[in-house]
């Protein structure tokens, strides 16, 4: 039997939703019929609007997805202006204040506390500069991720930006591809460092070469069915297909249509294409694609560049992220800035926009490690850029333990999360920087904190993986984390082993400190990377290296943050929630 969601989509989905949203905006929150909330909020996702969690009714998260994370000159500033005007909550966040934007692990931007009444104005302001919220959430083509320095990068073999943009233009707002069984995440990598992270996407294009009619052609190999969610992580599987960039557009459409027709619409938990690949195997998927979804002969896979992939790869030589100053192909530089847990306050957002315009082209690009990049900075401007006060905090040369930190949204806003994440990860990073001596030679150390098994912070592919849990401490349930080790991408990607379970959140910094100390003492020599060290040991040995303990680190979020309306409010009790509210913030009665 098709799920309720499928029935709602069948009734009304895709671009038809917009007029209804505009009507609700005109008439106000209360115009959304009480007994149709579930259906409408499911549909709103298609236009990038996601209802915030219980206790925050009538407020939405809005997602804006620029393909490949490329924000053209002026676009970043416009998003900051929108955050400044529309993304203000009823109360402050103690670390980030009020009014900010979140850079996500899929190169998008998320704004919170958005009102449906403001959405049409926000759309106008976004569209004026060529941005959109279309299909940022919901069951369809999500933001296409890829090399954030495509077109500028010395490591580039094929122009990922061209394909990402072409896919975006072809399949966004495309009737035939707008209602898929589930989300559809596509990645395009063009470089030899693997920074598109294709392995964890539903559909991945990876740079490759192939001899075709006696000539060497550059293009992409295709992998299908990666993803990290629901305790069922998969790396994308090689379906033995090579495509030129032009053909890649048709291949992508063919696989999207194959998913549309064959994905499981009866059970949303089994709907992602990774489960179809499990069931069919890559050979049957390729056969079906060839026979039913493309009208040309598919090439077999070409020679790939995976043996040089270094992005988020632990031991490999090469770049692990885009932080720092790097020369572009044209002799200018791109400058990657660290954004701790991806969150940028609006005041600093303006300063960053100013700096990008003054010293570079004004273009700002978003990375899958929740960081930002200024492109096109002439060599003679580098010194002035570096001395901008805002770069003290958004640094091109951060401490490795801050540089490697990623955190998802967490219980602050998300329904699924089990624990508080962003504020906690900021506190962790500060404590670790002050209290831990990094072992010799460790320049990159990735700690990813995800609030639940949906894995938005990509916890399974970090040196230290943290995932939201609960435990009992002194008889009370408290927020806790599972600790995993040894995950990463690269030529041979590896998911973390979960060797520490249900560690109280206030004992995690102590555990990481002890782990690093034990690593420094026990590794073969200073050339052995942390990932190699972990790969050499079995889970029992690793579990002994963690040693959770209380330290002088203090965690203000040990209680059940999900039971609050907002974890940082002075009176955080659900009953004290000002939501739902009218557009001006006046609370409305509700039994929600």
């Amino acid at each position, binding site marked *: 039997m098709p799920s309720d969601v499928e029935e709602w989509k069948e009734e009304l989905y895709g671009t038809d939703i917009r007029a209804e949203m505009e009507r609700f905006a005109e008439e106000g929150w209360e115009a959304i019929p009480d007994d149709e909330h579930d259906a409408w909020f499911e549909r709103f996702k298609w236009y990038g609007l996601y209802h915030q969690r219980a206790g925050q009714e009538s407020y939405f998260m809005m997602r804006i997805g620029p393909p490949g994370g490329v924000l053209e000159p002026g676009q970043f500033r416009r998003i900051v202006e929108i955050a400044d005007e529309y993304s203000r909550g009823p109360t402050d966040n103690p670390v980030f204040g009020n009014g900010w934007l979140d850079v996500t692990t899929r190169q998008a931007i998320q704004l919170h506390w958005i009102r449906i009444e403001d959405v049409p104005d926000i759309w106008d302001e976004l569209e004026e500069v060529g941005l959109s919220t279309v299909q940022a959430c919901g069951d369809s083509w999500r933001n296409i991720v890829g090399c954030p320095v495509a077109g500028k990068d010395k490591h580039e073999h094929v122009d990922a930006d061209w394909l990402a943009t072409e896919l975006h233009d072809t399949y966004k707002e495309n009737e035939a591809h707008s209602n898929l069984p589930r989300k559809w995440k596509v990645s395009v990598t063009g470089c030899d460092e693997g920074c598109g992270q294709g392995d964890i996407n539903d559909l991945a294009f990876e740079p490759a070469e192939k001899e075709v009619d006696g000539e060497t052609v550059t293009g992409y190999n295709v992998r299908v069915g990666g993803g990290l*969610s629901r305790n069922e992580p998969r790396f994308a599987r090689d379906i033995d297909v090579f495509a030129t960039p032009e053909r890649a557009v048709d291949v992508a459409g063919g696989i999207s249509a194959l998913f549309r027709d064959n994905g499981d619409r009866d059970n949303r*938990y089994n709907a992602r294409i990774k489960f179809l690949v499990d069931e069919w195997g890559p050979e049957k998927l390729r056969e079906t694609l060839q026979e039913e979804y493309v009208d040309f002969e598919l090439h077999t896979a070409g020679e790939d560049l995976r043996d040089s992939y270094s992005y988020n790869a632990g031991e490999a030589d090469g770049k692990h992220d885009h932080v720092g100053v790097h020369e572009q192909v044209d002799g200018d530089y791109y400058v990657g800035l660290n954004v701790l847990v991806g969150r940028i306050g609006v005041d600093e957002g303006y300063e960053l926009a100013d700096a990008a315009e003054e010293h570079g082209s004004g273009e700002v690009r978003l990375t899958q490690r929740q960081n930002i990049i200024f492109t096109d900075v002439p060599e003679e401007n580098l010194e002035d850029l570096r001395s901008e006060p805002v770069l003290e905090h958004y640094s091109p040369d951060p401490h490795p333990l801050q540089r490697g930190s990623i955190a998802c949204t967490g219980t602050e806003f998300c329904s699924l999360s089990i624990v508080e994440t962003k504020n906690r990860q900021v506190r962790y990073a500060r404590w670790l920087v002050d209290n831990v001596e990094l072992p010799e030679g460790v320049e990159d150390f990735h700690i990813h904190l995800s609030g639940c098994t949906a894995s938005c912070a990509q916890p399974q592919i970090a040196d230290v993986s943290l995932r939201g849990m609960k435990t009992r401490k002194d008889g009370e349930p408290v927020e806790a984390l599972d600790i995993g080790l040894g995950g990463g991408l690269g030529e041979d990607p590896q998911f973390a082993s979960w060797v520490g*379970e249900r560690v109280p959140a206030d004992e995690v910094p102590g555990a990481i400190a002890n782990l690093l100390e034990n690593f420094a003492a026990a590794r073969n020599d200073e050339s052995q990377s942390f990932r190699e060290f972990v790969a050499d040991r079995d889970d029992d040995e690793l579990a002994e290296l963690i040693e959770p303990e209380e330290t002088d680190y203090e965690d203000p979020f040990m209680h059940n943050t999900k039971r609050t309306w907002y974890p940082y409010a002075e009176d955080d009790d659900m009953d004290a929630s000002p939501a739902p509210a009218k557009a001006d913030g006046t609370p409305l009665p509700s*039994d929600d």
Partner: protein
Amino acid sequence: MAIALRTLDDGAWISVNDSRQVSVSDVWTLSRGVFCECEPAYVLLEGFFGTGVDGSVVVADAVGQCLECGTRDSIDRLPVGRIVDGEFKPYGPEGIQSTVDPGAGAVRQT
């Protein structure tokens, strides 16, 4: 009156009549054998994958993990609340639930 019951947002919560009533991430107290051999078992619910009604009792299918022994499993038809005069009255996760009939899943004891 017909009750609209469903799980939404990747199993993050159970909706009763278009209102978010039961959320994941609470720790439920279950008696021995319902989920694992701990007595009682403190089980973190991580996701709902189904919901229904048994008479006036709203039940949920969920995946969870025992905080003591670490068992990770699914639990079927866990009572999460009742419908009284068309209104949903949630059960607190702290009350102990035990099984009386293997076919009927866990039943509310307190």
